[in-house]
């Protein structure tokens, strides 16, 4: 059935679930630890999770994992039995142990050496929790069998199958509805269906009561039925099926002795003796059919109705659906070109096809969507570690854990989020004494939230620290030559200086954040996902970093536009409005910059044709269409394009693996006519355009 490698694979999948259950359980205990009000069953579940990991690990020879799990399990066991009182100290250690267990599982899975470092200390602390005599014993290795003196079972295979079901019997139900049964809204079929759930059902109808057509009353029931049901349930339960038609029918239930299953038992016996008889085999399997169904239902019923699917299969499906969408666009175009779209039926079918393709796509996307909960749980660990290393107490809060995001996005968020969370603890929160003198609680707060907002996912990391010290940031940026000393920057622009490459505000490089990785790495990681990141800060009250991400990396709704003869796609989510400007609304600023006045607000105009080098200078703006785009920090630009072709869903084809990150270009897509069009990143394009907006746009300078 399954090879050892497959089971190993299953084991590590199962470990993920178990570790999650472990984390969940510990958090649940956390909540009730102050007054010991947590459910003892939770401790049990936590213990079981660790125990199961240990059990599987032993089978695959993951010794270090087994040893550690054993130690951990012993602690949990004494907590379970009440020998160890769960207090905050103990739980903190348990969390750390769970984290380390996670490391060991990952190391085992990737077949690498487990992380060294704190393990020895952790083991010592864990055993320190145990009262002396309960110290974790080295696992006794006595799997030998003879030692226990068990009685062999009195099983005689040749005689009988032990535990054979003898209680299944056949009931014959005579069901004679009164004339009013149907007219009062009852349907015999429903009753039969319900009855068939009790066991194998045979129905025969007697049409004898039906009169000639002339005298037939259509709402009177003249048929009587004879029902035979094989079940191990009692007559009472059969009667219950007919409870609702009580008084509207005559019911006669009789037991006709042992059912076919009794015979089957005999056959079974035969089969045990002469297995070579294929006919009896066939009989068994057919006879067992209904039973088998019942069984699978019962064993599957309690568990989650989910299937584990190889991710590759899902990705292949997504790819194919993507091709289908492209194909549908091609087809639409062909039909359009052929000039037969006037045909009403054709265009209706085509529209249906389009809807269907979209539905399929959405459903497939939903398969890839996962809740951010596991990601958030990992971050809880990062907070724990960071607060331990920095000596700052931090409370971690999460919101919107059930928000679903594409799996790939979740995976690629781990690194940037880790960095942001570390930053929040390390740089965001103040040291406890500073907090106290500022009149805040000594324990800082770091909050991670996720939410869907207008077709995108917003993930925010916020802290209640002192906020960004803008003066310091500004000075450092000048010092490092990142900006001219005489720059006048808006607050939000100063905040965003943190994203410049090579920027680090920490005076002493701490163990946590100062790893040579700056926030610029965070930003480029987010940008690669088609996302944006922004910082908002309030002096004294804290900092919020906000990531805005697309829901999926596979498709987007785009506006297909013409830019100097090139077809390009602008994501719809970025576009606030489109307009054709009046000549009097267009103003020149200096020799190169142009702004357009939109409801008395001046918005810089960015000619996409010029930015992408498709033409050298702007043509008359009044003949062009402007797409108004807005960034998360409320900056707006007007992107000038020659015309708008269409608005449609396009399949995203990444360019990164072939071309690396191209500034301003998010990806590419294949159009209906088979041509390739670039999907632009409007904000990035605008920021990178050579025409700085009102003031010095700091981000425009980046990378120059």
């Amino acid at each position, binding site marked *: 059935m399954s090879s050892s490698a497959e089971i190993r694979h299953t084991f590590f999948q199962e470990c993920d679930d178990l570790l999650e259950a472990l984390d969940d359980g510990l958090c649940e205990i956390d909540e009730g630890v102050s007054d010991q009000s947590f459910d003892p069953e939770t401790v049990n579940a936590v213990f079981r999770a660790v125990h199961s990991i240990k059990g599987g690990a032993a089978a695959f020879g993951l010794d270090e994992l087994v040893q550690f799990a054993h130690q951990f399990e012993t602690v949990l066991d004494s907590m379970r039995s009440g020998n160890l009182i769960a207090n905050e100290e103990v739980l903190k250690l348990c969390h750390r142990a769970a984290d380390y267990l996670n490391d060991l599982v990952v190391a085992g899975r990737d077949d690498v050496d487990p992380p060294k470092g704190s393990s020895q200390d952790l083991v010592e602390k864990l055993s320190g929790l145990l009262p002396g005599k309960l110290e974790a014993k080295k696992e006794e290795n006595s*799997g030998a069998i003879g030692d226990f003196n068990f009685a062999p079972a009195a099983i005689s295979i040749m005689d009988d199958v032990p535990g054979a079901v003898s209680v299944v019997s056949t009931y014959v139900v005579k069901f004679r509805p009164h004339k009013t049964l149907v007219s009062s809204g009852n349907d015999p079929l429903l009753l039969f269906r319900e009855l068939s759930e009790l066991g194998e059902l045979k129905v025969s109808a007697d049409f004898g009561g039906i009169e000639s057509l002339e005298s037939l009353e259509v709402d009177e029931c003249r048929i009587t039925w004879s029902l035979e049901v094989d079940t191990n349930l009692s007559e009472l339960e059969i009667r219950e099926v007919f409870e609702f038609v009580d008084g509207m029918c005559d019911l006669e239930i009789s037991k006709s002795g042992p059912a076919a299953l009794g015979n089957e038992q005999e056959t079974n016996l035969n089969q045990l003796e002469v297995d070579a008889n294929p006919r009896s085999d066939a009989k068994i399997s057919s006879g067992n059919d209904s039973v088998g169904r019942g069984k699978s239902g019962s064993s599957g019923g309690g568990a989650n109705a989910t299937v584990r699917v190889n991710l590759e299969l899902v990705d292949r499906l997504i790819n194919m659906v993507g091709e289908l969408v492209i194909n549908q666009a091609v087809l639409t175009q062909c039909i359009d070109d052929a000039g037969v779209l006037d045909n009403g039926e054709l265009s209706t079918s085509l529209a249906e096809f389009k809807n269907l393709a979209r539905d399929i796509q959405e459903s497939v996307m939903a398969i890839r969507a996962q809740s951010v909960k596991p990601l958030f749980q990992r971050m809880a660990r990062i907070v724990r570690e960071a607060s331990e290393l920095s000596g700052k107490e931090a409370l971690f809060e999460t919101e919107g854990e059930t928000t679903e995001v594409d799996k790939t996005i979740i995976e690629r968020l781990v690194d940037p989020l880790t960095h942001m969370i570390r930053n929040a603890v390390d740089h965001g929160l103040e040291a406890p004494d500073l907090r106290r003198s500022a009149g805040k609680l000594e324990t800082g707060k770091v909050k991670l939230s996720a939410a869907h907002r207008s077709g995108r996912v917003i993930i925010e990391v916020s802290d209640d620290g002192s906020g960004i010290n803008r003066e310091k940031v500004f000075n450092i940026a000048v010092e490092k030559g990142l900006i001219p000393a005489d720059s006048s920057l808006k607050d939000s622009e100063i905040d965003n200086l943190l994203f410049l490459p090579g920027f680090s505000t920490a005076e002493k490089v701490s163990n946590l954040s100062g790893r040579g990785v700056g926030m610029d790495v965070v930003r480029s990681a987010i940008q690669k996902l088609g996302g944006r990141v922004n910082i908002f800060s309030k002096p004294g009250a804290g900092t919020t970093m906000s990531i805005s991400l697309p829901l999926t990396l596979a498709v987007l709704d785009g506006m297909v536009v013409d830019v100097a003869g090139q077809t390009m796609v602008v994501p719809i989510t970025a576009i606030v409005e489109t307009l054709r400007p009046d000549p009097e609304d267009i103003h020149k600023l200096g020799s190169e910059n142009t702004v357009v006045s939109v409801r008395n607000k001046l918005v810089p105009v960015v000619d996409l044709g010029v930015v992408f080098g498709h033409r050298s200078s702007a043509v008359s703006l009044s003949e062009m269409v402007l797409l108004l785009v807005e960034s998360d920090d409320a900056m707006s630009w007007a992107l000038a394009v020659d015309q708008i072709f269409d608005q449609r869903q396009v399949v995203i084809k990444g360019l990164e693996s072939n071309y690396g990150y191209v500034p301003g270009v998010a990806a590419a897509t294949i159009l209906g006519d088979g041509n390739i069009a670039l999907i632009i990143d409007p904000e990035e394009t605008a920021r990178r355009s050579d025409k700085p907006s009102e003031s010095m746009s700091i981000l425009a300078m980046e990378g120059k």
Partner: protein
Amino acid sequence: MALRDSLQILVVDDMATSRSLIIMALEEIGIKKIDFSVDGKSALQSLSTRPAHLVISDYNMPEMDGLHLLHALRNGPATKGVGFILVSGRVDQKIISTGKQLGMNNFIQKPFTTPQMKDCIQAVVGPL
């Protein structure tokens, strides 16, 4: 015809990994008729419709652990004679003695090798 061809075994374990490991060992031994349940309750249900000669059950399961399952089996008129082997990650004398009192037929510690599992089953049902 060998006993291993006709012996009907029900494996009860909530964890897919250890379930698969038991089943793999049984398959290596040459057992043909293997069924499984994911917890004690569905094991009881399964046995009421599809009898088995031998139940191999994990000890550590949610809600109904292996010994509770054994207790329920021994108290069911139809299942009181079924063979019962308990699988556990650790050798806990308390579990073993309770098991013995309840009528456990054998015990095997995880991790086990296929020959160990074979010996363990043979000690209960005779030569396979």
